[in-house]
């Protein structure tokens, strides 16, 4: 009973301290509103405004037709360049795609000679090049087909392929990015808040003060865990409701309660990480440098930026130990695919196991560090 009360009182103090830190409060609010919106709507992996140019050596009605088939928002209006400039313009990065229509193209086509169209792709623009090239291929094929249909015969296709995209039928990237952004902010902010609380207490000497009272280091750490988790949880809830649901209009397919249960499990790990970093750094400045490295690595490897399956196998085994990866995974399952507990229990278990293990380790370290503070 007494330990629970201690944890309660200390946690309330923690929340009061946080609320009186205006800069931190503004930072939290910004991180869970505007920052999410910007990240969700900023860049997209969708092909958007792709720069394209044509080398039209044919000058036929068909080549004009093809040229007119590319327009915003997916593509910029194509520019006409000469064959001689094509290489230099691509070298300079002016265009991502250059389509070369050879002389006598329409003529050869009508003669059934299957003429070549060359599509030059800047393959260093990884995110857009592959998908964009696919679009270009489809657009050209469709246009040629419909152009010829008006004049010639063309039989039906032997097999029709119907592609149906589940869970995000229109492929709106802000659906995905907004949730990844929330996940990233949860990681960053929880670590910053908890770690800063530990360091602030140490720098101001109040930690020592607590330690001569009848309190255990477990109670002190636990109070930080629940208080900071609660703040983050509320911020997450508000962000989900206001930014994700009301502004970005992302549908939530699964159970909100289930997802929040998962978030609580993850927060256990994130606060433990905050206590760990706050304990090993000697000053706020060192803490800040460490955070940049640790959080950046967590974000990059969690599968939120690029799919986990694309990582080399050995790295996938390593990232399997990262709760952030399972967090991203179960969030996708619950939020988009509407999966229930039976679909996510493995991830939940892994997050909880790593979280508790790491918390125990951080607590031991924390206890040791306060024993030797000079």
């Amino acid at each position: 009973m007494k330990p629970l009360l201690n944890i309660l009182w200390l946690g309330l103090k923690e929340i009061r301290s946080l609320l009186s830190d205006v800069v931190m409060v503004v930072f939290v609010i910004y991180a869970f509103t505007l920052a999410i919106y910007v990240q969700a709507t900023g860049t997209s992996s969708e092909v958007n405004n792709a720069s394209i140019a044509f080398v039209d050596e044919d000058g036929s009605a068909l080549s004009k037709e093809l040229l007119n088939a590319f327009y915003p928002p997916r593509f910029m209006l194509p520019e006409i360049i000469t064959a001689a400039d094509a290489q230099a313009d691509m070298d300079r990065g002016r265009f991502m795609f250059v389509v070369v229509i050879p002389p006598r193209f329409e003529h050869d086509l009508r003669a059934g000679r299957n003429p070549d169209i060359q599509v030059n792709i800047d393959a260093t623009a990884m995110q857009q090049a592959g998908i964009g090239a696919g679009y270009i291929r489809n657009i050209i094929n469709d246009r040629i087909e419909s152009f010829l249909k008006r004049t010639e015969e063309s039989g039906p296709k032997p097999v029709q392929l119907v592609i149906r995209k589940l869970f995000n039928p229109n492929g709106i990237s802000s659906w995905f990015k907004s949730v990844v952004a929330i996940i990233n902010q949860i990681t960053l902010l929880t670590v910053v808040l908890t770690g800063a609380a530990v360091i602030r207490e140490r720098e101001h000497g109040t930690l020592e003060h607590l330690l001569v009272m009848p309190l255990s280091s477990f109670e002190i750490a636990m109070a930080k865990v629940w208080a900071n988790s609660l703040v983050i949880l509320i911020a997450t809830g508000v962000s989900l409701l206001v930014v994700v649901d009301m502004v970005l209009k992302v549908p939530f397919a699964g159970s909100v309660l289930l997802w929040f249960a998962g978030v609580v499990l993850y927060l256990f790990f994130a606060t433990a990480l905050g206590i760990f970093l706050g304990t090993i750094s000697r000053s706020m400045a060192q803490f800040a440098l460490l955070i940049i490295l640790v959080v950046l690595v967590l974000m990059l490897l969690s599968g939120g930026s690029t799919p986990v399956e694309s990582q080399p196998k050995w790295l996938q085994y390593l990232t399997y130990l990262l709760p952030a990866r399972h967090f991203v995974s179960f969030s996708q399952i619950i939020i988009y695919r509407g999966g229930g507990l039976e679909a996510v229990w493995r991830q939940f278990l892994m997050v909880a196991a790593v979280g508790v293990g790491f918390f125990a380790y951080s607590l031991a370290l924390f206890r040791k560090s306060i024993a030797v503070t000079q």
Partner: protein
Amino acid sequence: MVSSAAPESPAGPGGKPVVSIQDVTHRYGGVVALDGISLDIPSGIMVGIVGPDGVGKSTLMALAAGSKKLQQGRVIVLDGDIADVRHRRAVGPRVAYMPQGLGKNLYLELSVHDNVDFMARLFGLSAEERKVRVKELLQATGLARFADRPAGKLSGGMKQKVGLCGALVHDPDLLILDEPTTGVDPLSRRQFWTLIDEIRAGRPGMSVIISTAYMDEAQQWDWIVAMDAGRVLATGTPAALMERTGTKDLEQCFITLLPEEKRRGHKVLTIPPRAPGKAEMAIEAHGLTRRFGTFTAVDHVTLSIERGEIFGFLGSNGCGKSTTMKMLTGLLPATEGTAKLFGSSVEAGSMEVRKNLGYMTQAFSLYGELSVHQNLVLHARLYHLPPEQAKARIEELVERFGLGAHLEALAEDLPMGLRQRLSLAVAVLHGPQILILDEPTSGVDPVARDSFWELLIDLSRKQGVTIFVTTHFMNEGMRCDRISLMNAGKVLACDAPQKLIEARRADSLETAFIAYMEDSAASTAPPVESKATAPAHVPAAEEPAPQPARTEQSPLRLGLGRMLAYTHNEAMQILRDPIRLAFAFVGSALLMLVFGFGITTDVEHIRYASLDLDQSPESRAYLEQFAAAGRFFEATPPARSADEALRRLQSDDVSVVLEMPPRFGLDFRRGSGPEVLAQVDGAMTFRGDTVEQYVQGVHSGLLRDPASGLRTAVPQEYAANIEERYMYNPTFESIYSIVPSVPALLLLLIPAILMTVSIVREKELGSIINFYVTPTGRLEYLVGKQLPYIAIGMVNFVILTVLALIVFRVPIKGSFLTLLLCTLFYVAATTGIGMVTSTFTGSQVAAVFVTAILTIVPTIQFSGLLQPVSTLQGGAGFVGSIWPASYYMHASLGAYTKGLGAGLIMRDVLFLAACIPILLAISFMGLRKQEK
């Protein structure tokens, strides 16, 4: 206000005042630090500015030194207006300023020698001059033996001496020392004053202005300025002031000088004797020892303290007082020995002991962001006082400690004296039997100190509370029942203060303490710091010329010298700071590996399941083509029902399900164009889009492929053959794009953060004062600090290139030399960005986060890492077109993957080169040469 526009004729020889302050007011936010002060400080003598903390002493001195920007009024120093830049520059080499705080203007990572040498460089001494001068000064101050020790590992007294060496290195005419002896042990303090006396003897014309909170110290000086609450209370010789107030010592004199309302309620403290009789032991320590590594902080301390006794612990900073206390409270386990409270042993973590204990840590350790009442309530709760009892107890304490008027005020807004009373109230809240107080009164004015002691005496005599207190103040030591003198981890003596004085036949406790310290130093080791007590060789004494060691050098050379001094200094610092060093080198390599392995847009091994509702040869032939698509698709067991298929998509088991409709084979043979349904997981949009393209690709491929067994009788005539050329990266593997792009991010992020930290760190820790008070120009300062980080950036480039070549096997196809040149300009520009962010951030934490966000976001969003610059429009396009990372990214991709020659990268080189002077100019304008 007792202004002294016409000071009593001072004893000094100088006719003109060395510093004349005319109607100066200074504010920090809403707080008035100096309130319309006018004061003439006579030259050629030793002037003391006395008063407790926070009355404006430091502000006054910083203004006189020209390190702080004047807000209102006029300050004339050495016959010129200090607000005038030209005068400051001209007079700078004649003024030396040592700011408050132990070693605040020192570089803690640098050695003693390097610190002094750095100051000598800034004042333009040549290499030979420096060698001689630094050696002389270190010998004179007894620091020669410690020349190679990092300043951070020195005791407080030694740090102050290093600071003094730095100040004296250029033979100043005006020496300004701000609280040079606060926190320094009595022996070092005495040595320090001896040293100053000797230096003054050698340079009779030199004026010295010193501030102090120790009134007894100031009693020896020529002329005193007593200050309180931003105003001057009185000026004059100590004797004249004491005569005027009819007091015997300066402390009493100061109290008498205070305005009426502050003195109210103050009475001369009387200490009733302790009731004799029962001698229960409250605290017993036996052979208490604590070592940190090889360093022995506390060395066999044995104590026994009776119940109700006030026991004082006297000693300097770092002598082991606090460590001893922590062992007594159970905060720190003892390496050796035992400690007992009321007969039961203190084990680290024992809850019973803690309930009997009240503790007040050094400095203020309550929650400043909570109100007075909230602090009290929190502690009552943590000690589990029942609510009724807690309420009564809090009311009682508020009444007795006079906190009633401040209940709702935030603890951090309270003045020092009140804060300490609140701390004490919190410490006694639960009615402990033992109170342990670590320097409870440092920084508190004499009146508040006396009222604090009244409370302590009351607790001890009326309630039988045992009080264990440490202090710097000798007069507080006199109030204790018994004291123990501590130095370097050892208790030198322990008895009633009067008896200690008698035992040494000394005139005061301080003299007795010094005598004990000298004995102990003589008996143990060769004297450590006592060199200065012997007639020291003070260089200035032998050199009559006012500016003996200065040869004329051209201004340009001097400037270059100062710049390189900063370069050298910065390089040494970073080499000795493991965390920053690791961040500089390990950080970039780590991130490169994570990016290179972790970020890949290659979508491969897509897990798919088939749902074949037809099971005809045709449907099997169709599905066969996906299984044969190599690394792109990975088959999983077929789904048996639509439900199962959906469930597997939901739980991310598969990313695509291919559904062959019933009668597929039949419809195909009939030529009626059956539909195949591909359900693609679109949750992760990029992957979904790519999977869609792959499915489409396999589908159109199999229709043309005669081997598929699905080739229809009617070939598709009249179709164009689309030939896709993946330029620069024919295999279309993301590693060839990611690996060359990542350096653009890392060579921006890491040099910018390190650069900004290096400047903001100086602001935060205080060593930027060296820039304020030396003739160093802004450009010299900036470029000097920038050079080491450019070098670090280039080393990073080499590391990243080696990783790219060896680990990721991404070769450089284009011109390496052009890329090298480009990198040089790029890191010069990125460190420039760090400089710019340092101009508007105040703390290191803010600097790191602001720089990280300001550099990462535009680099990822607008410079082509994710989205080609050519596709950006409007604001994003504009940012992309001026952001240096866009150009470097182009150059790096060009050199690695595209194999571009020098000509095509030249535009990037030129742009980056143009960024350097622009960023430097912005930083130049944003950097202040004075503190605000």
